[in-house]
Structure formats: C-alpha cells, structure tokens
C-alpha cells in the first residue's frame, strides 16, 4: 500500500490545476492510451509536434502534482485478486460522525463517500478472500446497529469515460 493515498474526512474541494497547451494535449491523448513500443513517449511527441524530453518532463510534473492520479497499465481488478462489493448504510444524521468512525475502522473499507439519499453512506469493501466480505458486513452491522445494503456487481459494462480539457 506504499503508494496508496489515504485521505480521511477530506471535503470535496480541490484546486483546479493550471495547465499548459502541451499538458492539455497530453491529458486528452493519453486518456485514450499509450502505444506499446520501445519509446512510447517519442511516438507521442511526434504526434503532438513536441520533443520526447518535453513530453517526459510534463508527464512527470502532471503525475507529481497529482493532476494524473495514475499513469500506466490499468489492470482488471479481478486479476489483482480478492473480492469487492459496494455497500450502503442509512445513517441517522445525528450519528453520522460516530458511524463514519466505526465503518472506517475496518481496514477492508477502501472508499467511503457521504451521499445525498436516505442511504447516505456508500463504501467499497475489499477483501483478500470472497467469504471475508460477509464477515465484514456482519461485523459492521454489529458495530453500528444498522442494516447494511449490499450491492455487489452482477455485471460490469465497458466504459468509455473521456474528460477533455
């Protein structure tokens, strides 16, 4: 978990990055993919009318400033092993802080978001073994006194997300 970011209670407000023309071109082009060859950044530079050194420098800076949260092969989570589920709780407002602490105390909780709904807490449970999911759910129910809504994925669809800048 060396490179994993652990953000606790971070409100959702980030500064919007200031980007150069080359930064924007790189972000737009590289969301679609990097060619698989010995010198991929040279090929990208040729496509954008830039130099390999410039492309490498800008990409490093984009990664360092976390404008790019990831850069490289995206593996199908199934192959990374373990099991996942998305689950939710309907938490009374007055108990929200306490329940947040209770739920987050489980190391198997990977993400947790507050959302606008009667089910106002949505979290991903990630475990090494599939049968551990049920154990965590039961433990959360015992700890919080609330019933967990468990919505594991039945089918995942291909997504074509593209965020142009």
């Amino acid at each position, binding site marked *: 978990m060396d490179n994993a*970011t652990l953000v606790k209670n971070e409100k959702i407000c980030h500064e919007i990055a200031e980007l150069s023309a080359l930064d924007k071109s790189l972000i737009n082009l590289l969301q679609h993919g990097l060619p698989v060859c010995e010198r991929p950044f040279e090929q990208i530079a040729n496509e954008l009318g830039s130099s390999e050194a410039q492309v490498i420098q800008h990409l490093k800076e984009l990664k360092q400033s976390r404008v790019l949260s990831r850069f490289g092969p995206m593996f*199908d989570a199934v*192959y990374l092993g373990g099991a996942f589920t998305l689950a939710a709780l309907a938490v009374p407002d007055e108990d929200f802080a306490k329940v947040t602490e209770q739920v987050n105390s489980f190391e198997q909780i990977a993400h947790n978001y507050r959302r606008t709904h*009667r089910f106002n807490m949505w979290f991903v449970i990630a475990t090494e073994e599939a049968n551990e999911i049920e154990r965590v759910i039961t433990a959360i129910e015992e700890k919080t006194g609330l019933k967990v809504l468990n919505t594991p994925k039945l089918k995942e669809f291909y997504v074509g997300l593209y965020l142009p800048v």
Partner: protein
Amino acid sequence: MSDTTILQEKPSLTAIERQYILLTQNGLPIIEKPYHHIAEQMQISVEEVLALTNDMLARGIIRRIAAVPNHYKLGYQFNGMTVWDVDDKQAEKFGDAVGRLPFVSHCYLRPRHLPQWNYNLFAMVHGKTPEAIAKYRGQIKELLKEVLLTRNNDLSQDFMTKSNDMLTSTEILKKTGLRLKR
C-alpha cells in the same frame, strides 16, 4: 439473488504475469525506455516484455495503458451516482449503451433489495457543474425511457419508490488504493 456476495472465479496468473503486475501497478516509469526498465527488473528481454504487454492487453488482464486524470483537478468537480430501476430482461443491453456514454466512468448491474432499494443499474457521471451532471442524468433517462419500471408506491413505507435517482457525494470519508499485495 440474495444478500450473498457473488463469488467471482479467481482467474489464475502465471508467475511472470504476477511479477509484471507487481512491478507496474503503481505506474509505468516515465522515462525514455520504460519497457527496457521493466525488462531489466524481470531479467527478460525487452521484446519479451512488449509481447507480454500485448498479450495481457489482448486477454483483458490489462484494460489499457493510459493516463487517469484526477477529475477534480481538471475541473470535473461534480459527480453523481445515477441509479435506475430497469426491466431485468433489457438491463444488459441498455447497461451496455449507458456505459458507452463519454461522461460515464463506471456502469454496473447490481442486485435490488426490495422494498428499500429498487435500483439495479448504476452509472457514475462526472461534470464541471451541477447543471452538467443533471443534463447527463437526463440523457441517460432519455436512453432508458422505454425500459424504466414504475412500481406502485406503498404508502405505509416512509420512502417513495422512484424509477431513478441521482446520489451526489458531499464528502469523501475514506479513500485508499487497491493493490496486489504479493
């Protein structure tokens, strides 16, 4: 489908594929010859690394080799988890179409839990303004209008059953990365 988690068959990886994942899951090195760097660490040739990469791409172990921007830093500050009550017989076909919309980052079929939760299709949308995500929700609704279910509301319940909803996030309570551990 009950409360039980779906047991996914655990696909097996070869030792070399496992090594490749461990070396690159935190990112591809941003240097002139990134695959040479991987080849050195794996003690195989760069040709073998490129062939392995293409093979893992073809088999879907690697989905793509790409940049993933931080939504927020690009100004996509708003996200909505849109949820839909879709006719089961049509759900796969229409879920596939929803996933292909450019503003959708995740799209899944998930189990309903009636009566509390009647939605079976989830699609996460991202936009720069609240109006943008409301518009995207409208576009999905237009696409799904023929297959959305309307259920009778049970007035004894303290909640309404709608054909769709959008849950926006107001706070990140926890966020950690998912990694292969060994």
